[in-house]
């Protein structure tokens, strides 16, 4: 005879349904609208390939595509060139102040993305103090505006991804492997090239992929530093918001091309690491060399130069926020003028930022934890499909999702454009996959037998979850919440499209201030963001066991 399933209200099936509804409404539907719009004629609404012919065939857009690839690949190369040597120095040598180096790298990773662009303008712009200083020494630098400046900012911004992932991988290479290489005659550079680097290739390429996708998607930096150097993200934005007749069809097509490039990159990285994921038995920790003499100077110099230069923008921003200004010009003397101005002129931005981010984090962590639980503990076809859908936000730039939201929620049945809710929701859906993934990895470290033991002793499944699994998840969830908060409060690329006067946020206000040359306001607001970010990171470092793991 067949035994009927125990009938019981299943919380987890409800979570799955809710998750599909949310992902369908906030992710699939907006992206579908973008996708559909790219095939429609703006005037007639007829099905057409004209938009694609235009974007792929017209020199104006071809330039944007090429430029996007240049800054994407260039940002990636710069990040790898900084991140891998730094990782090798830190993981294989007795470097003094290792915690300081790691913390500084983490801080430059999580600091607001466009702060770099802004700070480098005040340092290396036409009136920048660093440019003047170097010019006095007889060193004339090329302009900060254009691709070189963008790559400088991207390299210094995204190298921590490569660094953190590579350090983690290097620490997991069994010492015997490197000793075997030496024993067989491969030392120094040969050992590195033949054994060590191939072993950490999956981690390096994962970091490189992140740097590529984020460079490609970034809106603030090329927008501030581009000065005529058009890339796809800024082009899509301009096409949509242009005052003389926006062109949603072309904006959508540019967006789809952007997503397609990201997808190709993801596939290429997958292909590269296929058959190269090595299960490692870490029976012996890798050797860490002591440093002496010249070698010590070189290694320490390199490490501190990289993290020092990448932290420079934050220092500059904080310093600038205390300088006296008159309009766009910094004047001698220090004071709190900029802060007074911020508080009297744009208190909304600060309040909005904290309110929107907090709301988004509550949603992200709440649903992310529950979905993570379902994926980790109740695998199945539906859970697998949800997992796949949740990969989408990784390759969809904020500008594109912002456009999708405008197109989808600007009238009945759902009218959200102009509200704070739409900004909260776009941040929520962009950050949800990260929260889900971190919940899954937290749960992997909590044995399922613990919950079974609780149920076996008479606790109902929901009570077992609340009494046993949830308390064990809390530190990880809190760390995840703080990271979600950091990305939420620093979000620019989607909110720049969705904000209206009343829902302006700090990043948007900073962006506008930089464009208008209000450097004092920008610096003061950026400092508020930096301090907030720093506090959140400090909490993460306190509660999480793996320092680096929480950030990538």
């Amino acid at each position: 005879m067949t035994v009927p399933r125990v009938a019981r209200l299943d919380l987890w099936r409800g979570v799955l349904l809710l998750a599909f509804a949310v992902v369908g409404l906030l992710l699939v539907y907006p992206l579908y609208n973008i996708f559909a719009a790219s095939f429609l004629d703006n005037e007639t609404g007829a099905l057409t390939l004209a938009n694609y012919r235009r974007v792929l065939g017209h020199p104006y857009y071809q330039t944007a595509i090429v430029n996007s690839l240049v800054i994407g690949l260039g940002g990636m190369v710069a990040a790898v060139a900084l991140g891998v040597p730094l990782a090798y120095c830190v993981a294989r040598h007795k470097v003094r102040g290792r915690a300081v180096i790691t913390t500084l790298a983490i801080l430059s990773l999580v600091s607001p993305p466009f702060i770099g662009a802004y700070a480098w303008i005040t340092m290396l712009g036409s009136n920048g103090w660093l440019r003047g200083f170097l010019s006095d020494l007889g060193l004339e630098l090329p302009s900060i505006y254009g691709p070189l400046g963008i790559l400088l900012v991207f390299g210094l911004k995204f190298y921590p991804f490569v660094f953190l992932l590579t350090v983690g991988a290097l620490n997991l290479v069994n010492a015997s492997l490197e000793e075997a290489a030496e024993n067989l005659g491969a030392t120094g550079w040969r050992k590195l090239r033949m054994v060590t680097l191939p072993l950490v290739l999956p981690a390096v390429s994962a970091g490189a992929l992140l740097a590529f996708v984020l460079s490609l998607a970034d809106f603030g930096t090329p927008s501030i530093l581009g000065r005529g150097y058009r890339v796809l993200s800024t082009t899509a934005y301009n096409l949509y918001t242009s005052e003389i007749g926006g062109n949603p069809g072309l904006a959508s097509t540019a967006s789809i091309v952007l997503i397609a490039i990201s997808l190709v990159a993801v596939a290429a990285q997958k292909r590269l690491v296929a058959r190269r994921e090595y299960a490692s038995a870490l029976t012996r920790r890798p050797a860490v060399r002591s440093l002496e003499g010249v070698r010590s100077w070189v290694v320490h110099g390199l490490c501190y130069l990289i993290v020092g230069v990448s932290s420079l923008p934050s220092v500059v921003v904080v310093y600038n926020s205390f300088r006296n200004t008159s309009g766009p010009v910094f004047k001698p003397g220090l004071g709190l003028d900029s802060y007074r101005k911020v508080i009297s002129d744009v208190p909304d931005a600060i309040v909005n930022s904290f309110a929107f981010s907090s709301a988004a984090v509550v949603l992200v962590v709440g649903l992310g934890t529950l979905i993570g639980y379902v994926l980790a503990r109740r695998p199945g076809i539906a859970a697998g499909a949800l997992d796949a859908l949740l990969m989408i936000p990784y390759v969809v730039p904020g500008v594109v999702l912002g456009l999708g939201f405008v197109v989808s929620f600007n009238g009945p049945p759902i009218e959200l454009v102009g509200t704070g809710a739409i900004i909260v929701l776009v941040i929520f859906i962009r950050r949800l996959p990260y929260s889900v993934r971190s919940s899954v990895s937290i749960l992997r470290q909590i044995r399922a037998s613990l919950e079974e033991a609780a149920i076996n002793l008479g606790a109902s499944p929901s009570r077992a979850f609340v009494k046993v699994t949830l308390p064990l998840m809390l530190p990880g969830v809190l760390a995840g919440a703080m990271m979600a908060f950091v990305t939420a409060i620093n979000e620019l690329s989607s909110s720049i499209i969705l904000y209206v006067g009343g829902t302006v946020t700090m990043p948007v206000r900073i962006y506008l201030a930089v464009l208008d040359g209000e450097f004092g306001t920008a610096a003061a607001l950026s400092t508020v963001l930096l301090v907030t970010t720093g506090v959140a990171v400090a909490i993460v470092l306190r509660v999480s066991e793996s320092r680096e793991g929480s950030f990538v």
Partner: protein
Amino acid sequence: MATLALRGLHKRFTGTVALDAIDVEVGSGEFFTLLGPSGCGKTTLLRTVAGFVRQDAGEVWIDGACVDPLSPDRRDTAMVFQDYAIFPHMTVGENVGFGLRTRGVARAEIARRVREALATVRLSGYESRMPHALSGGQQQRVGLARAMVVRPKVLLMDEPLSNLDAKLRVELREDIRDIQRSLGITTLYVTHDQEEALVVSDRICIMQGGRIEQVGAAWDVYKAPATRFVAGFVGSTNFIEHLPPAELETAVPDGQPLLRAVTAGSGGEALVAVRPEDVRLLPAQARPADMVVVRAVLEKVTFTGREALYLARVAGGPTLTVSEARPTREGLVEVGASVGLGLPLGALLYFDRATGARIGLG
């Protein structure tokens, strides 16, 4: 105290049959062990009783009532896990008291029973310690206390000792046996360690490929294995496919079943088996009347301390293992020596070549 009955249980996981027509009756207070190699279905069976695995067909009865409609938290079984599953965020006392709290027992009563349970597993005074400060053996004692303190109808143990080192394993299995007997809790115990099963159990159920091979007391499964698999899995056994007639040197009359069986080779109906400790190492000329004697050459001698193990090769036939208890230095036979192997007629087992079932030959 309660009985446990499993009736016609079937369970398929994609592609494999985990449980196939399982029928078992466990008596009240009995220590019943499921023994088998990994993948034989023993853990699936245990988890079916707990309710974590839902059978495709069949019924689970506890204390005279079918528990299939009950979810795992309402079955009143208590489980001891292979990986201990001690809640790392609770003290030892809170861990042991967990099942009592879910049952709504009063606080004072909980404190008293936790204290008693910890005393039983020799962890008195450990109430406020955190689990990570305990050794593996101590953690599993906590697991045992946590399970038995709720006085479950059935105590379930899923390879509770397999993560512990050898010495601790022996010590703790004695404790488990003593505690189970003094409390009289009906116990279903899973292990792949045959010695452990023989030592602790009232009855042993040997499983393979989702099926029950034999249920019986330790003595029965060892001395009278029901199938060829049981004979090979519990203890070690020499299986004799074929003995060349030329090497037989025997006073046993022709027509004796062993001779028929072994000289017929794979064409015969029966496979012969004999335990290493039943084979006798004989001087070359000896011809005891109650044995078949085979000529062999010693290939290897291993001294384990408690016994001597000989590997003896029959020319053109099998290599047999012979164990000699309490060997003496003078009595050890040298490698290369020609010996007679005595196979006592009373100790021989016969199995059907096709079905593996034990048969009598007459």
